[in-house]
């Protein structure tokens, strides 16, 4: 399985009648951070979960604070082969605090969570909702940004280490489904942004350490329909070579339908 986001964007672009984007490097990274608008990010995460689940025996774990009310309207357009049985391969978790999330992720190695099917994809929706909560988080590390940075590092390292362990299990049990991939979304605090122009978000700076590949969603115009530029950048694990940036355009219509175009 290629990087799951690349797979989603290529599949959706192909379903929109566009030829597969053959040029550009194909990222093989195991962990990708989706940075940008939370509404669009969530739709992309759900499409990624559905895309992976529709490939057969791929078990997906989806962590989010807020209940999933409906599937993205584009799901059946982008993934025509999607069946109700595929949805059973996605397990949703609804932790309300970073401590609950950490406890759930830390216990994924236990046999009850790895048998009979070992997870191949871990998705965490809106990291900021766990990391940047007022007064949230024990686990130490001080106050303010320093506390948020410590929580971000702990959660990222835990996710990374858990995915690495599940990868080892998959390689032993079902090599075709290895490695276990990690996909998370993050949006910088929109209120903190303008106060410190040019200064990187301190939490995002920490996440950069643990997520070598980032997919950035940037608003590129549109009035009735929203147009987002999608850039996938970063390095392939195990090499020092930067992958060629890959770019798509997401067009979100007023009724929520997402169309992917390769650029």
């Amino acid at each position, binding site marked *: 399985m290629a990087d799951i986001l690349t797979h989603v964007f290529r599949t959706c672009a192909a379903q929109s009648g566009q030829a597969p984007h053959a040029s550009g490097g194909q990222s093989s990274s195991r962990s990708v951070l989706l940075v940008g608008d939370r509404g669009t990010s969530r739709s992309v995460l759900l499409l990624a979960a559905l895309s992976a689940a529709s490939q057969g025996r791929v078990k997906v774990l989806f962590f989010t604070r807020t209940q999933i009310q409906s599937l993205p309207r584009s799901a059946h357009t982008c993934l025509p082969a999607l069946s109700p049985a595929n949805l059973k391969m996605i397990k949703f978790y609804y932790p309300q605090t970073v*401590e609950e999330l*950490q*406890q759930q*992720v*830390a*216990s994924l*190695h*236990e*046999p009850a969570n*790895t048998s009979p099917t070992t997870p191949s994809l871990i998705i965490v929706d809106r990291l900021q909702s766990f990391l940047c909560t007022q007064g949230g988080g*024990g*686990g*130490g*590390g*001080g106050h303010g*940004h*320093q506390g948020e*940075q*410590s929580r971000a*590092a*702990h959660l*990222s*390292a*835990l996710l*990374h*280490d*858990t995915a*690495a*362990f599940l990868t*080892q*299990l998959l390689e032993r049990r079902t090599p075709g489904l290895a490695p276990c991939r990690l996909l998370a979304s993050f949006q910088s605090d929109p209120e903190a942004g303008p106060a410190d122009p040019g200064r990187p978000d*301190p939490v995002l700076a*920490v996440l950069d*350490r*643990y997520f070598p590949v980032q997919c950035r969603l940037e608003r590129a115009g549109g009035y009735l329909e929203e147009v987002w530029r999608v850039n996938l950048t970063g390095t392939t694990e195990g090499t020092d070579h930067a992958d060629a940036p890959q770019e798509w355009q997401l067009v979100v219509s007023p009724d929520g339908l997402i169309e992917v175009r390769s650029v």
Partner: protein
Amino acid sequence: MRSFLPAVAEQLFKDIQKTYEEKSQIPDDLLIALKFVFGSCAVQALDLVDKHSVTCLSSPSGRKAFQVMGGSGRLYTCFTSCHYCPCPAFAYTVLRRNEGLLCKHLLGVYLSQAMGLTQQESISDQDISTLLAGGATAS
């Protein structure tokens, strides 16, 4: 621990491992190199190794984690596949200031592994889950 270090640091650990296997000690030139690359925490990390403060915890599921006992007796749980330590030095020097590669506890893990001086301990799946999540076990 899978390394996320610059090549010079990785080579240094390899040299220490090779030399320690042959001579059961680290020669002065490697100690100087260690201090040059990692600064003052090199001596503190070697002190942790001397005191056998690094333990590799394993659970029946196969999950592993390192636990390092700091100078004050506090236990720090570190991951086997990437760099993280809950100590204040890691939060401040590595994460916030971006001035160091590792804290003394993580460096202690690398050195302890290279010198074959890591203690081994088995714990339950539930206990290792609690430790990885940042909590403390009952024992």
